[in-house]
């Protein structure tokens, strides 16, 4: 997979939200094989020891800043510019939340922010709804990828509308990275089988009882899905198709 011409060795992007500590993050990074991970931009805590940036850099993991917590295009644009200053990257996971209870994206504000940031040369990866028309508009705005949700952030509900995800994948000419809602690795496999190029997983790994084990499971699941997507699944049929040949079948019926 490549985004904006930059190859990504792993199709599993790690969201660091919910991680219990930097030691857990390090173990999760190793197990996941992820080469890109999100961070949020927050006030400096003078009492903090250690930096998430140091942990990511030590493992050569690219930083993908997000605009989590923004509710308007203006806030998201300012946050992206601050993140560019802080992390020396023009990549941004663009997120504009429209509802506190579901954390669903406000797609009107999202599109507005995406247009502004793309015009200013940012590499924009928007967290969006599973609406194929919105995905197309984001691509037309110049986004480097589209990141439709499987289900609300942190819900673990999986992919609620696989048909829409497949429609988005079918039409997109930029990478599609399923973002949000996954609860377990088989759902990541499904995302790849539906045609997604990758998945971004946070809570399902970071809030698992054994985060590093779950990260390893997601790595394998994403590899399985990518292989399966390229291998060509058999068509669905209403009735059975025998897998053993009828030819050469012994005559074993009772002769009388």
């Amino acid at each position, binding site marked *: 997979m490549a985004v904006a011409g930059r190859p990504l060795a792993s199709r599993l992007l790690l*969201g*660091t*939200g*919910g*991680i219990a500590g930097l030691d857990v*993050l390090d173990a999760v990074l190793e197990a996941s094989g992820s080469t890109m991970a*999100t*961070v*949020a*931009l*927050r*006030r*400096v805590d*003078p009492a903090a020891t250690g*930096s*998430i*940036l140091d942990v990511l850099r030590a493992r050569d993991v690219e*930083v*993908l*800043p*997000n605009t*989590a917590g923004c509710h308007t295009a203006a806030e998201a644009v*300012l946050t992206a*510019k*601050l*993140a*560019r*200053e*802080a*992390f020396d990257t023009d990549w941004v*996971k663009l*997120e504009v939340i429209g509802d506190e209870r579901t954390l669903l994206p406000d797609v009107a504000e999202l599109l507005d922010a995406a247009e502004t940031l793309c015009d200013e040369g940012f590499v924009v990866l928007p967290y969006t709804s599973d609406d194929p028309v919105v995905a197309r508009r984001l691509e037309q705005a110049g986004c480097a990828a589209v990141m439709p949700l499987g289900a609300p952030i942190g819900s673990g509900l999986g992919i609620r509308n696989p048909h829409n995800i497949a429609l988005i994948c079918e039409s997109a000419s930029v990478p599609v990275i399923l973002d949000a809602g996954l609860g377990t690795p088989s759902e990541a496999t499904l995302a790849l089988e539906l045609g997604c190029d990758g998945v*971004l997983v*946070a809570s399902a790994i*970071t809030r698992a009882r054994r985060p590093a084990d779950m990260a390893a499971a997601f790595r394998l699941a994403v590899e399985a899905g990518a292989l399966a997507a390229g291998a060509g699944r058999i068509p669905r049929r209403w009735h059975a198709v025998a897998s053993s040949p009828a030819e050469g079948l012994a005559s074993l019926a009772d002769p009388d």
Partner: protein
Amino acid sequence: MLEVMVNGHAQLVPAGSTVADVVRRWRDCPDGIAVARNGEVVVHSAWTGTEVAAGDHLEILTAAAGG
């Protein structure tokens, strides 16, 4: 002395302090830091040349787990 708001806390800083001075009081290492002053980005190259004024709102930001 001037009173400015830094990350939501009122702080007294000497008159003539720059953004760089305020950041240094908050954190030793400026790596991975961005500053917003009254809702505008102050780029790194402007930190030493930008004096803060009384009543300024500064946000000094860095990476946290998220997303």
